[in-house]
């Protein structure tokens, strides 16, 4: 056992990498849920983003194009969900689940010929000056650009939700869709856009797994990241900055358990690999035990404008 071999600088640096896919998916889902819709298809949209991004990056040798197509693929998949839930009034839980099943199927089908190939990855981007700071530099400021993009998206979502008119309308729709409808806001159109944003973010998150974290494609490689993202939305009480905390905490647990496995700690591998899920459950319990914690009031409720 070699616990001292775990380097704290590397640990934090890899924590950010392992948290980024979940952060991207969670911030997208935060917007969706803020608009009053629960999309349980995150896992499906992530894995489709992962496979589409991977295929594009391998064929064009451009990871940037990979991320763009992954976002488009995630958004397109979410259109299916949005149409069913908003216009055909289907049950949100069941539809989200169906989307995950379909996404897993599509990804396995598309990815088959690409198994065992390595993808081109993003160059790490050393932020000038900041990355030269000892310890903190390599820890925080020497990542690939997507790590920064994910933090910027969080900042933009926070700003939009709290400081702009469109954010206010979105929240109104999520809190009370009947009142928002009475005020003349297009409830369904706003939700549709929110769902597509969530889909695009999930797609990006998935692509980050297949293009940056692992750089290859294996079937079912998101391995529950989408569900963790959903849990983090609850953990963060639907507040954008807290998704950052949640995702990084979770990333920390994941990286730590991997490091413990590598260091040969005397705990069976299976128990270490289940620990992120167990800890997520414990955190969910703690959060929910505190009572009302800011879930949008119309979350998961069906909206039907009856003239």
């Amino acid at each position, binding site marked *: 056992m070699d616990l001292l071999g775990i380097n704290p600088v590397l640990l934090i640096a890899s924590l950010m990498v392992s948290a980024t896919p979940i952060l991207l998916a969670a911030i997208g889902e935060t917007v969706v849920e803020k608009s009053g819709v629960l999309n349980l298809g995150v896992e499906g949209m992530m894995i489709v983003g992962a496979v589409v991004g991977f295929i594009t990056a391998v064929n064009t040798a451009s990871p940037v194009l990979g991320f763009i197509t992954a976002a488009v693929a995630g958004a397109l998949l979410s259109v299916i969900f949005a149409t069913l839930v908003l216009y055909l009034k289907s049950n949100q839980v069941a539809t989200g689940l169906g989307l995950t*099943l379909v*996404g897993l*199927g599509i990804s*396995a089908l598309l990815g088959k010929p690409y198994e065992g190939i390595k993808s081109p990855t993003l160059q790490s981007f050393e932020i000038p000056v900041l990355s030269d700071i000892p310890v903190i530099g390599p820890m925080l400021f020497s990542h690939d650009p997507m790590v920064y993009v994910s933090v910027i998206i969080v900042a933009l979502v926070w700003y939009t939700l709290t400081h702009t008119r469109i954010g206010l309308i979105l929240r109104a729709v999520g809190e009370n869709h009947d009142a928002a409808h009475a005020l003349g806001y297009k409830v369904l159109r706003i939700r549709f856009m929110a769902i597509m944003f969530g889909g695009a973010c999930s797609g990006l998150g998935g692509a980050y797994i297949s293009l940056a974290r692992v750089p290859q494609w294996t079937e079912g490689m998101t391995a529950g990241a989408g569900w963790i993202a959903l849990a983090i939305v*609850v953990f963060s009480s639907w507040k954008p900055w807290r998704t950052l905390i949640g995702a990084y905490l979770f990333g920390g647990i994941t990286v730590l358990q991997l490091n413990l496995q590598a260091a040969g700690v005397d705990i*069976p591998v*299976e128990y270490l690999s289940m620990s992120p899920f167990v800890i997520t*459950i414990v955190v969910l319990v703690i959060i*929910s035990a505190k009572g009302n914690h800011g879930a949008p009031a119309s979350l998961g409720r069906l909206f039907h404008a*009856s003239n």
Partner: protein
Amino acid sequence: MIRFEKRLSPSRATTIITPIIAVILTMIAGGIMFALLGKPPLEAIRIIFWDPLFDPTFASYSRPQLLVKAGPLILIAIGLSIGFKAGIWNIGAEGQYIMGAIFGAAAALAFFPAESALIFPLMVISGALGGWLWAMIPAILRAKFKTNEILVSLMLVYVAESILASVAQGLLKNPDGYGFPGSRNLQQYPSAFNAEVIANSGMHWGVISAFMAVIFTYVMMTRHIRGFEVRLLGEAPKAAQFAGVSTTRLTIFCLGFSGALAGLAGMFEVSGPAGQITIDFNSGYGFTAIIVAFLGRLHPVGILMAGLLMALTYIGGELAQLMLGLPGASIQLFQGMLLLFLLATDVFTNYRIRIGVAH
């Protein structure tokens, strides 16, 4: 302009017709998918839906398989449907299925190699208990702390998979297995073997339990106060509250019931068709059963038929893999599409389509 007008009560005719329309739409979309994959679409559909039952060369093997695959699907879906009706979402049946299998197999292996007629009943009880206990985690957390049961039950699937991997390589590993992971084969342990009740029919005790569960649930939902409470909680939670229905008790009942049935399904699978606990023992029945529950309109008889149909796609899918080289994932996609089409056509059950300007 097209408008949806809410029906006062769901239309009975469309309740029956929409699943059929959804199946047809899935066949069309699936056919397009097969064509895109460069496979003959009509032939693929025929191989999936017709050949397992009627082809002279395959039918003798496939027909019994129909019951083998449908048994666990029906058993799990029946349990889930009760919760879904009440608005309690257990989507972690896969985990409860795994725990049922582990508990059931452990009960048998504890007595190996003793032979007794009591071992199998004990396994049945342990299997149900394993699934029930695993479902009690989200149930109690939901009842006590209002923790989201969807996320907890789902997360527990991953935990159960880790436990499965652990016991297959440790606790339940076959000591005479030359170091390979996996438990002893229960098919070679007469007291524990869940053999076919009628030879070559595929009818093992799990299938019989599934049929019993269908009848039991039908009676409960239509004749018993508990069934009434479940429907009341799902359709009018406020009214249920005023009528003194305890949400807590019902949550624990629904999750426990579905967990126990999923555990039973896992136990019958490990002691019969699968034979042993292996690292990848579970095959997604817990998730497919969700589709079965919806396809069967959360109605026991509907679920019985939906389970048989879904079993057919499994067997037909395997056949299509063999005959046409169709990728296995395309069947998974096919099943997922079925659920989405079903949910899409559902709108006609609850809404009337009106064309024209609102007045």
